[in-house]
């Protein structure tokens, strides 16, 4: 049933040490079963589909209609969500994972959403209309009420004034005597802000012949359309004549004042009032019912909205994926190409089977494993603990396929190097507790879905923080430093060397403050041995020369730790070479590199250790030479410089510059040998590998077995010529390539319909025999930078040489500069210790100078300041700083010895990932 292209190789389970073995698979799926199979694969989340239709635009793909339908559905759902949020109805989000609905269910979903959307729109429309009516009626009510007062006042005036101009209340009487002027009025409502301008304009236009009365409406009215609340004012304008009427009406229109028909007689007004009130009550009821209805609809919808959204997103992603597939000629079968881990092939096949059966298709789906020379994606299986460290490594560069993954080693070396720079028991404890809190509460904190980015950064790194804190406590114990104080657990190894008469001489206050050295010949308890675990507590008392001792110790420790880590990196590169079976690399890259590192830097480490073991403070015989004392202890740094310069020095420890002499017999000879070997390694690193690759290339081309002796000679000359080549070859070749690239199609001998070619992959150091079916050789230039070794094209010597030169220079110079770079371990540790000391001495210690209750209060206050500054400056700021530097040490100094980092990550088609991304995008917006 299922076919294999070739028998699968025994699957290695390297765990996280190397990336997973991936294979390219072809899937043949029936068109009916396609949806179901992709749904199952999406739930599984283990395959990465490739786009088989890259040249077809998004609008021409097969399933573009379905994608559009999904987009429509999503739009409707988002509209629903907005309405639900507007009414502040809580949305139920159980976070459950609903199954992917079948294609036929999609129609049902569409119908449901359509109905809901229409209903909601209708309800919204009705509500708007009702609200508008309600507003109008309310305004009318106010008008009626206010105008009542106007007319009443007017009556009084009339009665009092007995004016010749009589205003009759009976304005409807058409045949009033002409002497009695008829005052007409309009009543309306206008926004309060517009009123002053309105009045002014009226006065100007009507030349003062109109009379305006106004009164504010106290209630705030809600505008139906915009929903904002506005303040309105009732106005009534009295005027004479028709011309003024038109003018007034026009001005009212211009200021968007709504005019209402107001009856003149009080009875009519009263009737109208009553009518208006009843209508308002009715409207209120109807409005209430409409809003209730809307609320009910939204509540019913809110229970399902999130689930629907998840379903729709899943459907959309399935159709997007289906668009990547190829339809074969008969239109019945879909072909897909995907990357998948070899270990999971069984599970993938099971998913395919399930999907096919669920769709009721008779024809089974086929998974066919393909051989390919393309570079597979890099896939590391991580859990919640290892993910933090893997992300740190990936941030620098994704590992090349199947090369050693530095992450498992980083899990310990990174917190360790951090701790060497951070080393304080107290601050380490704070960090440990913080990490522990995050770890113990991780379930609650994850569920809370906190969006703050800084919090998330710390939370995701909780295991890293925990380990950093733990190691910091250990290194703090060794540095004997807890909040800048030392503890004396095992008894110091230093004793007093001054007698009673000395103390008699120094009795006054100033004399007592003078510092004197406890010389190690007398004061150090040699047979008792040094302080067994960590730094002797006496050094914390020696404020004047504590740093001399500590600096020397930390620098030497940093150099030794650094060289150890770089040697470890070099060893890992050996593992890589052995895995990729590149003999060339082992012999001509690894060995010269190891020799170079060994002859100079491991020699330096050995010197440091020898100086520690053999050179004491008192006079002695060291390596057969008379050693007068500590002033003649050899200076290692100057000794190294002199070794490079091959300076001739005296032997033994005589003279004023005894610390610059040779200090073990045969030193000049050994140093010369080491230097010579190291220098010889450089041209070997530079030329050996390219030469051998060239030779291999020649042999493969069948240009005959070379007569080795004259050819070697010729090639030696060629090697020397490479130097100007290195300078000019690559630029010239690039210029030529720009002028016109002519692909060279090599057709080596075919065998039975298959073309065989040997591919020598430069970066992966891989040589494989690849059989491809009869198709034109694809231009496969995508994978690596640097030198390409195409099997079918000519070996590009220029590229090869340049790459090799870069690599050599990087390693040689890197060895020196990286060793010095590790001194940052010392520098940061010093800075941390000094800051800690400052905080104690300058902030907290002052509290001890006060007595009694004042002292207690000041201690309380100063401790507060001390603690917050400690956490803020020392834990957070120094912690971040040490984190960054430890990261840099790993990325540059450690990984440059072996890491390629040219891979691309495995991005499987997984519903989980897609839903998570969409949710995050939502929360961001």
């Amino acid at each position, binding site marked *: 049933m299922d076919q294999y292209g070739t028998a699968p190789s025994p699957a290695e389970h*390297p*765990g*996280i*040490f190397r990336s997973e073995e991936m294979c390219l698979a072809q899937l043949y799926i029936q068109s009916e079963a396609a949806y179901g199979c992709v749904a199952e694969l999406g739930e599984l989340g283990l395959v990465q589909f490739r786009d088989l239709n890259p040249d077809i635009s998004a609008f021409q793909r097969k399933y573009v209609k379905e994608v559009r339908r999904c987009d429509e559905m999503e739009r409707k759902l988002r509209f629903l969500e907005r309405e639900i949020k507007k009414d502040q109805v809580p949305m139920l989000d159980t976070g459950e994972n609903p199954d992917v609905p079948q294609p036929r269910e999609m129609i049902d979903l569409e119908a449901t959403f359509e109905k809901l959307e229409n209903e909601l729109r209708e309800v919204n429309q009705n509500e708007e209309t009702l609200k508008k009516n309600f507003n109008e009626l309310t305004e009318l009510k106010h008008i009626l009420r206010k105008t009542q007062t106007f007319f009443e006042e007017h009556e009084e005036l009339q009665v009092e004034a007995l004016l010749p101009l009589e205003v009759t209340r009976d304005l409807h009487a058409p045949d009033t005597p002409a002497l009695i002027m008829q005052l007409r009025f309009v009543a309306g409502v206008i926004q309060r802000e517009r009123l002053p301008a309105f009045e002014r304009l009226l006065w100007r236009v009507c030349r003062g012949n109109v009379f305006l009365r106004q009164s504010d409406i106290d209630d705030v009215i809600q505008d139906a359309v915009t929903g904002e609340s506005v303040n309105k004012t009732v106005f009534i304008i009295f005027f004479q004549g028709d011309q003024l009427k038109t003018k007034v009406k026009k001005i009212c229109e211009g200021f968007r004042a709504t005019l209402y028909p107001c009856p003149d007689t009080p009875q009519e007004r009263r009737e109208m009032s009553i009518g208006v009130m009843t209508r308002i009550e009715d409207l209120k009821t109807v409005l209430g019912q409409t809003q209730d209805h809307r609320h009910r609809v939204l509540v019913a919808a809110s229970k399902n909205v999130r689930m629907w959204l998840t379903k729709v997103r899943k459907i959309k992603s399935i159709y997007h994926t289906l668009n990547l597939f190829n339809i074969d000629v008969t239109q019945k079968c879909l072909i897909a190409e995907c990357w998948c881990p070899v270990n999971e092939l069984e599970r993938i096949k099971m998913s395919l089977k399930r999907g096919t059966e669920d769709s009721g298709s008779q024809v089974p789906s086929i998974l066919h494993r393909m051989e390919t020379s393309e570079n597979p994606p890099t896939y590391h299986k991580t*859990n919640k603990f290892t993910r933090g460290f893997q992300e740190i490594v990936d941030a620098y560069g994704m590992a090349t396929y199947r090369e050693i993954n530095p992450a*498992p*080693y980083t*899990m*310990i*070396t990174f917190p*360790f190097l951090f701790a060497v720079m951070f080393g304080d028991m107290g601050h380490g404890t704070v960090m440990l507790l913080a990490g522990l809190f995050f770890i113990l509460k991780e379930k609650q904190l994850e569920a809370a879905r906190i969006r703050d980015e800084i919090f998330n950064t710390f939370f995701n790194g909780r295991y890293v923080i925990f380990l950093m804190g733990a190691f910091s406590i250990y*290194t703090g114990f*060794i540095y004997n430093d807890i909040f800048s104080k030392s503890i004396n657990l*095992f*008894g110091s190894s*230093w*004793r*007093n060397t*001054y007698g*009673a008469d000395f*103390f008699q001489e120094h009795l006054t206050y100033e004399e*007592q*403050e*003078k*510092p004197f*050295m*406890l*010389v*190690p010949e*007398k*004061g*150090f308890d040699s*047979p*008792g*041995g*040094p*302080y*067994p675990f*960590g*730094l002797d507590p*006496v*050094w914390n*008392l*020696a404020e*004047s020369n*504590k740093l001399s*001792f500590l600096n*020397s*110790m930390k620098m*030497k420790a940093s150099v*030794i*730790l650094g060289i*150890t880590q770089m040697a470890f990196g070099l060893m890992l590169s050996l593992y890589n070479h052995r895995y990729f079976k590149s003999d060339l690399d082992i012999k001509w890259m690894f060995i010269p590199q190891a020799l170079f590192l060994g002859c100079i830097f491991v020699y330096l480490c050995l010197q440091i250790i020898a100086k*520690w*073991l053999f*050179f*004491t*403070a008192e006079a002695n015989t060291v390596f057969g030479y008379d050693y007068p004392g*500590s002033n003649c*202890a050899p200076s290692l740094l100057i000794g190294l410089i002199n070794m490079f310069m091959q300076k001739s020095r005296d032997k033994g420890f005589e003279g004023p510059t005894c610390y610059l002499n040779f200090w073990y017999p045969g030193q000049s000879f050994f140093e010369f040998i080491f230097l010579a070997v190291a220098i010889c390694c450089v041209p070997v690193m530079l030329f050996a590998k390219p030469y051998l690759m060239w030779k291999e290339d020649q042999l493969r081309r069948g240009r005959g077995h070379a007569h080795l002796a004259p050819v070697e000679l010729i090639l030696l000359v060629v090697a020397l010529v490479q130097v100007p080549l290195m300078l000019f070859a690559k630029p010239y070749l690039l210029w030529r390539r720009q002028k016109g690239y002519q692909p060279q199609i090599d057709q080596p001998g075919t065998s039975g319909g298959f073309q065989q070619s040997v591919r020598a992959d430069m970066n992966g150091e891989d040589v494989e025999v690849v059989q491809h079916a009869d198709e034109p050789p694809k231009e496969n230039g995508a994978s690596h930078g640097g030198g390409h070794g195409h099997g079918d094209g000519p070996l590009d010597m220029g590229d090869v040489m340049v790459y090799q030169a870069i690599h050599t220079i990087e390693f040689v110079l890197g060895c020196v500069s990286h060793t010095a770079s590790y001194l940052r371990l010392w520098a940061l540790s010093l800075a941390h210790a000094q800051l800690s000391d400052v905080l104690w001495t300058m902030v907290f210690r002052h509290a001890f100078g006060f007595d009694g209750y004042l002292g207690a209060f000041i201690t309380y206050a100063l401790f507060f300041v001390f603690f917050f500054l400690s956490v803020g400056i020392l834990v957070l700021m120094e912690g971040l700083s040490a984190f960054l530097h430890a990261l840099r040490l790993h990325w540059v100094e450690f990984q440059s010895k072996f890491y390629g980092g040219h891979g691309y990550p495995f991005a499987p088609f997984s519903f989980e990932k897609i839903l998570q991304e969409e949710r995050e995008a939502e929360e961001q917006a």
Partner: protein
Amino acid sequence: MGVIIPLVSVSAFWLVIGLGGPFLVPKGVNRGIVQTMIVLTAVCCWLFWILVYLHQLNPLIGPQISVKTIRWISEKWGDAKGVKN
């Protein structure tokens, strides 16, 4: 405490952890990683300890302390051999 005792005991401690620890890891997916971590921890911690220890084995300079603190040392920690106080 002598020179040998701490040297041997601490080295033995980390040696036991580094060599014996990996065998105590239960079988599972993460066995390799945990073993690597244990060995690396043992190596790093031992290395750091011995660097500090070796540096203090034969000190070339001594601490420079004020007279009043030296008096305190004399009383609390004692005098060196041959010092009359």
